[in-house]
């Protein structure tokens, strides 16, 4: 037995994957129906059959470094055809959720985002910070917040300068945290030993962004099209809304501060293209969010199991869009009491979404992008059916 491979199963890891929606994983008997029905599985690095047995054996490090987890787009054809109802689609989703926790920096944040009991505390932080902004801005006079009619100016309770200071500082901090988490992940990816040759790093980056932009892989899902449409709308809606917010900051704050005549007075009003962009993004996010929530609520085989990470992220991001759209409408129709309350909720949700991004399901966009770049640059990501 000189060449024996000693497996070191991580029992706690198996337990956690089962608890996170992968409870069916031990049913798998390795027939490999899943790898063949999968439209995205690579010919030479087939999944998800192999990852199922690795999970059963609790080989955590090997699994979490496997780019296949992120080549899966959860269409659940594997779960539909699985003869044992082992639901590889759900096991993969649980493994991805585990990744957010595993690679996160600082690691207590990863644990907090995975823990339902920590949710009130996680919300309390942005609620208190934004409330502090409100307190310091209104110098004791809050009467105007409670009017039923009248002009709405969000800059009075929530001055731009203070919000910008908080969000910009926060985002820089979050950027470093993400970078740190992703470095850990990249190190894991590099521990793979692919036997194929890829096109190199830059072409892989281009191919990855083209693929993400076109949602080509989502569109490969034969049994369920609403995930493709829903995700596409959410994806571009979010980019649109984020771009509009950034341009808003640029034109109303930075350019004004530079003293340039190009500046736009706040609030940016309809039909300024920036506003149009923001509204279009918000609407797309709302429709996309509705489609995805509906799919997950249907409980169909195609939808797969939805775990805490899925719901938390989907509800928060859809709520960001909803409160954002309402903030605009309530300002136009001039109902201050509702408008200010909604805007407060919007700010809290945006804070929650962006600052907790590395540890919530929002992180999937970073992990997936990186994994795809790695897989493509090493010739692993070559779906048999594409």
């Amino acid at each position: 037995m000189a060449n024996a491979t000693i497996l070191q199963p991580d029992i706690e890891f198996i337990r956690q994957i089962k608890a996170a929606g992968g409870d069916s994983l031990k049913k798998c008997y390795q027939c490999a129906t899943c790898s063949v029905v999968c439209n995205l599985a690579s010919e030479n690095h087939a999944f998800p059959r192999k990852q199922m047995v690795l999970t059963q054996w609790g080989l955590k490090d090997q699994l979490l470094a496997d780019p296949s987890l992120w080549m899966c787009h959860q269409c659940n054809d594997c779960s539909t055809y699985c003869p044992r109802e082992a639901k590889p689609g759900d096991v993969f989703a649980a493994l991805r959720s585990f990744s957010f926790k595993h690679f996160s920096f600082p690691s207590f944040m990863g644990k907090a985002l995975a823990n339902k009991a920590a949710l009130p505390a996680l919300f309390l932080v942005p609620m208190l910070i934004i409330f502090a902004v409100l307190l310091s801005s209104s110098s004791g006079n809050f009467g105007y917040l409670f009017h039923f009619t009248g002009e709405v100016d969000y800059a009075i309770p929530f001055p731009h300068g203070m919000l910008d200071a908080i969000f910009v500082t926060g985002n820089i901090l979050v950027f470093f945290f993400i970078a740190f988490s992703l470095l850990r992940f990249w190190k894991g990816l590099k521990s793979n030993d692919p036997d194929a040759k890829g096109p190199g790093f830059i072409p892989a980056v281009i191919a990855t962004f083209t693929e993400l932009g076109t949602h080509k892989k989502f569109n490969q899902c034969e049994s369920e099209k609403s995930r493709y449409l829903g995700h596409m709308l959410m994806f571009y809606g979010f980019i649109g809304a984020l771009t509009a917010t950034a341009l808003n900051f640029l034109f109303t704050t930075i350019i004004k501060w530079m003293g340039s005549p190009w500046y736009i007075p706040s609030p940016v009003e309809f039909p300024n293209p920036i506003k149009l962009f923001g509204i279009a993004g918000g609407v797309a996010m709302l429709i996309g969010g509705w489609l995805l929530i509906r799919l997950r609520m249907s409980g169909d085989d195609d939808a797969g199991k939805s775990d805490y990470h899925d719901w938390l992220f989907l509800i928060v991001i859809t709520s960001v869009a909803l409160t954002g759209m309402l903030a605009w409408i309530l300002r136009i129709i001039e109902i201050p009491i509702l408008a200010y309350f909604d805007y407060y909720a919007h700010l809290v949700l945006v804070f929650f979404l962006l600052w907790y991004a590395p540890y919530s399901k929002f992180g999937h966009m970073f992990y997936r992008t990186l994994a795809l770049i790695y897989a493509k640059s090493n010739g692993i990501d070559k779906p048999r059916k594409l």
Partner: protein
Amino acid sequence: MEISGNGDQITADILVVGGGIAGITAAIEASEIGKSAVLVEKEPFLGGRVAKMNQYFPKLCPPLCGLEINFKRLRFNDQVKIMTLTTVEEVTGKPGDFEITLKVEPRYVKDDSPDFDEYVEACPIEVPNQDNFGIDMHKAVYLPQMAYPSIYAVDPSVVNDDKFKSWAKGCKTDIFDLDMKPETVKVKAAAIIWATGWQPYDAAKIDNLGFGKHDNVVTNVIFERLASADGPTQGKIQRPSDNAEIKKIGFVQCAGSRDENHLPYCSAVCCAASIKQANYVREQHPEAEIHIFYIDVRTPGRLEDFYASTDEDEKIFFHRGKVAEVREVSGSKNLIVAAENTLTGKITEMEMDMVVLATGMVPNSVECKPPVDAIMDDWGFLSSDTSSGVVGAGVASRPFDVAASVQDATGSVLKALQMMNRS
């Protein structure tokens, strides 16, 4: 108890339902320990599915010789009353004292006239041969293999056909009587042995394996007919689409078996059956490559030797990984089968001339339920709990191969006797 009564009232110890290998065995075993039995069979012949097989595994001998021995034992046994074209309509009473109503379908043939053969030869009407899954046609009046009694049968689909009727009228009047009506027979018996056997799982329900869509995808039961001398190709194994010789053939194990979407249980015979069929191909087409794709090869007991010796064959290849995709090559009727090689983690695609799906067995008791409160499992197999007075035998109680069916049938007689003693 001696069998008694005649015509439409019969009294016997045991009613055996199903005239296949299990039912025949049960009736003979009962009679040879001094019990009487009525054996009913819905077809005009005995032998059931076994009579349609080309060879038994692992000995690779024809099933008919074994069946004929039993057939002989039956014929010289006056304590077994055999009734073909007969089904169970109703069961009343309780264990130890059942009254069973049987329905006897009309035979439409009056006697076995010496001139019969030449008339039948002249019969102009042909119908799809159901024994060969409708692949070929046969005459509407035919002598089934192992017919009991040994007389011609009329395919029920033509009885109301005007063309057939006018031909039948032209024959000697004492041969056909198309106005025959079903008859009712009452049987008093203490126990019932349910040996209704099985049917192949409907492979068209397995939507990724192409049966019913691609001409050259067949099931193992169809393949068995292709290899049989009395089958549609007179025993010549060839491609259904163009009768071409086979150069590369794939066997897909667990097609719809051990599968929660289809049959969740293992049908117990398909691994050995595919190995047997690989040997048919090997014998007829020595140059052909044979590929068997499996999850596990399940060949328990002495079947392991059968597997091991087949595995050594240089033309027979075993692949670990289930086929989950069969598609046709455009422009030819060849097939691509795809499976992951679970030893290398790579997906293999292979081009085949023909693909055989190793489909499993569905108990007939699903469609043809015993008309008493017999205890059945979720999949229609009869429980070993015989408190209802009905004892399962053969594949009505579990998926079995022929040898195990025979043993189970023998055991079922003892169970029936125990039950009769209790009641």
